[in-house]
């Protein structure tokens, strides 16, 4: 008998008033009991709508059935057939707009907790089976053909893993000193523990993928030089790391951060453990975060944890348009983050010696839908006001970094920087060069980046097989 409860089995969490003072993980994960109970909510639908909702086609009903039967390790390997990073996806996928959105159970009550179950299977495997698993990733016969992957975010890691699995010698070139892309430098510890990212990266290394850090492609080596070194195909998965600023007066005052800088200091450089770690961060009593995506929520929740008394999100549209995952917004509210919606910043105000002291804003109302389909915010005359703050964090989006495009002749990009590819094959304008993830789409999601990495790996395999003939 399936479990017909309209609600997901509750996920244990740290209490809001406790967790907004530490960087430990917020959601604590299911026990075996909870997982089996939740798994029984799945109806094992014949037409499997949920599978189509997942960008990498995780065989959802199959792995869930295995969990229901208590076969946790098998459930893990079922997920791994199509998803290389289950512990990560289970935690950060926007399930409500993907797999869980189309789950039959969502028609009456909550969908099956697919993400939570995926996380459970991955965590269970790491804790209980990893060391002595009889099963391991299959290693194909070596082909002795070299492929270079640029960037070690989810797109690059997935592409590299898939290619290694069919026998290519894959080297990942990463600009930073640590692999993982946004998973390491952007998404905070309390949402995605870095230990988990490291474990997932290790799994990929075990497939034979070599990761070279401290390699800025375009500077340390160019794309052309990589080819001269014998890499027959190249995948560009460099993400969207270029921070956008508002272009309003006062943005260069001391105390204004791009979200990228703020989060990199906190996560990659571990400024939250200063002075044990050397990199400092400056968080005042009151912090305004501009924007309402995942990045903004992460920055706001970090600021709170770093001791700010008052943290507010400043967003020019309304709650309905906020791009962040629902769960992050919900968690942020619980932790005491304030939301100033329909509010647009127009100037950062500074003290005589150049430190931020306030954010001047104007109220907005929503007009007709714009080209993005969202209702366009319009300023309301005479509603200027000042929010007193010590820090401003700008989280209004990132675009692809021009470093590679500007040093590679013939690599075509969109005006805004995205690399132009053939949607079916991920091929760029240069032969043997493929691209995917945020570098192509602009800031998107982990799972879409992984989907692109997968697709590119398949085309690279095809390209190289044909080239050999």
């Amino acid at each position: 008998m399936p479990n017909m409860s309209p609600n997901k089995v509750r996920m244990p969490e740290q209490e809001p008033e406790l967790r907004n003072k530490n960087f430990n993980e917020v959601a604590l994960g299911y026990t075996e009991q909870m997982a089996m109970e939740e798994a029984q909510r799945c109806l094992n639908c014949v037409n499997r709508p949920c599978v189509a909702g997942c960008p990498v086609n995780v065989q959802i009903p199959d792995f869930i059935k295995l969990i229901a039967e208590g076969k946790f390790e098998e459930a893990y390997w079922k997920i791994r057939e199509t998803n290389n990073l289950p512990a990560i996806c289970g935690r950060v996928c926007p399930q409500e707009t993907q797999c869980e959105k189309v789950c039959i159970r969502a028609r009456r009550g909550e969908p099956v907790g697919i993400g939570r179950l995926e996380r459970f299977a991955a965590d269970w495997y790491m804790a209980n089976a990893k060391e002595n698993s009889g099963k391991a990733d299959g290693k194909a016969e070596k082909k002795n053909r070299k492929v270079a992957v640029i960037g070690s975010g989810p797109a690059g890691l997935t592409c590299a893993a898939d290619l290694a699995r069919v026998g290519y010698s894959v080297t990942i070139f990463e600009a930073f000193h640590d692999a993982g892309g946004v998973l390491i430098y952007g998404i905070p510890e309390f949402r995605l523990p870095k230990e988990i990212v490291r474990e997932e990266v290790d799994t990929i290394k075990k497939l034979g993928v070599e990761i070279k850090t401290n390699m800025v492609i375009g500077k340390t080596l160019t794309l052309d030089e990589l080819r001269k070194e014998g890499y027959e195909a190249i995948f560009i998965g460099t993400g969207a790391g270029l921070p956008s600023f508002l272009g309003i007066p006062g943005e260069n005052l001391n105390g204004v951060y791009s979200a990228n800088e703020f989060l990199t200091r906190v996560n990659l450089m571990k400024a939250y453990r200063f002075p044990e770690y050397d990199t400092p961060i400056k968080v005042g009593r009151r912090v305004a975060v501009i924007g309402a995506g995942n990045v903004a929520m992460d920055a706001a929740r970090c600021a709170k944890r770093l001791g700010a008394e008052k943290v507010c999100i400043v967003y020019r549209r309304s709650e309905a348009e906020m791009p962040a995952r629902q769960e992050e917004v919900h968690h942020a509210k619980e932790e005491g983050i304030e939301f100033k919606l329909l509010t647009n910043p127009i100037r950062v105000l500074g003290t005589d010696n150049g430190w931020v002291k306030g954010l001047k804003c104007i109220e907005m109302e929503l007009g007709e839908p714009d080209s993005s389909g969202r209702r366009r915010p319009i300023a309301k005359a005479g509603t200027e006001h000042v929010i007193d703050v010590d820090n401003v964090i700008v989280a209004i989006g990132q675009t692809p970094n021009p470093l590679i495009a500007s040093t590679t002749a013939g690599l075509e990009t969109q005006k805004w920087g995205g690399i132009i590819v053939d949607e079916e094959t991920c091929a760029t304008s240069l032969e043997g060069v493929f691209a995917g993830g945020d570098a192509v789409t602009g800031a998107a999601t982990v799972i879409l980046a992984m989907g692109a990495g997968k697709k590119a790996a398949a085309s690279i395999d095809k390209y190289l097989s044909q080239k050999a003939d």
Partner: protein
Amino acid sequence: MYRIVRKKVLNPTVKLIEVEAPYVARKAEPGQFIILRVNEKGERIPLTVADFDREKGTVTIIFQKVGKTTKLLGTLEEGDLILDFVGPLGKPTHLEGVKKAVVIGGGLGTAIAYPQAKKLYSLGAEVDIIAGFRNKDLIILEEELAKVCHRLFITTDDGSNGTKGFVSDILKELLDQGNRYDLAIAIGPLVMMKVVSNLTRPYGIKTIVSMNPIMIDGTGMCGGCRITVGGTTKFACVDGPDFDGHQVDFDEAIRRQSMYREEEKRSMEEHECKLGGGNNA
């Protein structure tokens, strides 16, 4: 990991190390920099490429002890390893076609200016170098500099060696005497670069300054290194570090550099505490 193959103490606070970093050595040009991290808990700090040897695959950096990381770096010896060392970053300085140049170095800035003077000289330009230091004990690279210029002027703030005064005093004299240059390169403390830029402006002498804002990644992804040049925001790590001194907003840059003063002090104090007195540098 990157091995230190040579170490030289240039003065009580300035050290030179040559580091095995073949990829960086292959591409480095004057004007570019590297970012290093000494150990797992360390900060990423930018340092200029002072010299490189493409054959040996080594890169030389010269650094001054100003805070925790530079102090720690100074305690490493030949054979020791540095955890991360990435580069070359930033844009090389364009020095082609210059006939007569004046290169001005303030303190440690002299070390950063040295490769540029060397390149100008090897390209056949007539080079004057003005190098200023607080006192005679702090003078560095005197012999090396002498080899890559036509005239070398040394100043010390206290007159303990060379001319008493600032580099800008000498520059003003040279300009007053009627010397004209197609290029001035000024590298040193922000205030010095500001003064030099103000001196050359009325003469319309193109002046390159090397900006040293606080950086993290050095690849254009954090925006922490932003400075205002000619009214627009630039990222020093990718658009620079060299900029037109007549366009730079120095006052803003000076302010931004002081952003972490308290934390830097705290970091240094904790470090010295652990070392037990701080005599180990």
